């Protein structure tokens, strides 16, 4: 049974058992504009909820990506390195990394709450 949650810093996490797949929201990619660079985390990195773990650059500016949950990186979507624009094309599909979850904050939103949040 998987659960999709969003942070108020505009990242999503799809949690299945104790593994979370993490990406940035469609709203966030839209606000950032054309992405041209991503500084990916590495397998083994420890993520702390609310802290930056990755940065993305649009033509306009650089932005930190915050960890929506805490955990340890077990897989990284290396394809984004050469094609960060995949996030612009499909933000919910273009995941950044998968982590073994150690803690999930209780202020994450479900899809409906997040849709309301960004209104």
């Amino acid at each position: 049974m998987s659960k999709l949650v969003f942070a108020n810093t505009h990242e999503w996490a799809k949690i299945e058992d104790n593994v979370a797949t993490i990406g940035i929201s469609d709203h966030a990619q839209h606000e950032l504009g054309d992405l041209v660079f991503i500084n990916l985390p590495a397998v083994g990195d420890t993520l702390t909820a609310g802290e930056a773990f990755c940065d993305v650059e649009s033509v306009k500016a650089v932005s930190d990506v915050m960890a929506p949950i805490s955990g340890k990186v077990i897989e990284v979507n290396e394809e984004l390195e050469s094609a960060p624009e995949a996030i612009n094309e499909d933000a919910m599909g273009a995941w950044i990394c998968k982590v073994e979850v150690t803690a999930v904050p209780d202020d994450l939103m479900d899809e409906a709450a997040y849709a309301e949040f960004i209104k």
Partner: protein
Amino acid sequence: MAKRTPLYDIHVKYGGQIVDFAGYELPVQYEGLGVIKEHTAVRTQAGLFDVSHMGEIVVSGERAEEALNNLLTNDIRGMYDGQIRYSLLPNDKGGAVDDVLVYRISQTAYLIVVNASNADKDARHIAARLPQDVTFANISDAVAQVALQGPNSEAILKKLVAEEFIPKKYYSFTKNVVIGGIRCLISRTGYTGEFGYEIYCGNIDACDLYEAIMEAGKEHGLVPAGLGARDTLRLEAAMPLYGHELGEDIPVNEVGLGFGIKMGKESFVGKAALEAHEPEYERVGARLVDRGIAREHCDVYCGDEKVGIVTSGTHAPTLGYPIAMLRIKKGVEGQLTVDVRGRRLKIELIPLPFYKKA
């Protein structure tokens, strides 16, 4: 509160994402397009920018040429009516109050186009230094300007104006040209490194002019283009931006704009300071060797020594790699790196401009 240009409602209509720039609410990019598409359109077809925020100052009178020439680094003597010249507007220390375009309307009347962020400062600077018999008028708030840029610009303009009224030469203009009933000044200039025009009209006519050009451009791939693309385009063309490559405290003989500085002139504001100043720094171009993007204010190192800063940097959409303009000490040798948020990225120097139209 930020001002709006007369084209504000049009930007909203075309889906412009509005940001505050130099005290104006202007679109950074448009919905459904974005910086890269707008940039590419200008390189391959055409884009239309609102540059109404730019300032315009008119200086006129029998002694206008002489008086103005003393305030500029370039020499405006010997220009023809309808000619344009780029110049720095220097301060007494040899820094730049602004960089400007000077339009010669006649030997006794000049239009000076200045940066929005400096318009009030420039107006005070110029007005205070003109003799009483030279007339000064700041018409910035009455004038709108759009920039039609890209290889299809001429074909688009020809649908609206008879060919004889379109300026032929780069850095020349035609005035009192009527486009769809609107009186305009058409200038063969731009800030993109691409073929194009900048068109001036009164505020009241700006929306009609913009829509007439958009309509004429439909079959030529014309798109509205925002500040984001304007910046990436000018950066590829290595055109300086005030506040980045130029400033009050940056001697103008260190910025690679020698073509616009005539040290042979008898006198001009800042000349003595420039004569006394042996350039220590230079403006150079670089591309990133390591992955990443170096932005303005990043420090540049040669080994452990800080040798300068990045003045502008971005991903270059036409070139497909990140570029930067640097202000570094002259004659530095060895591997350069740039500090990007704590990471030292290798860069290599490459010639300017980064992009030159075919």
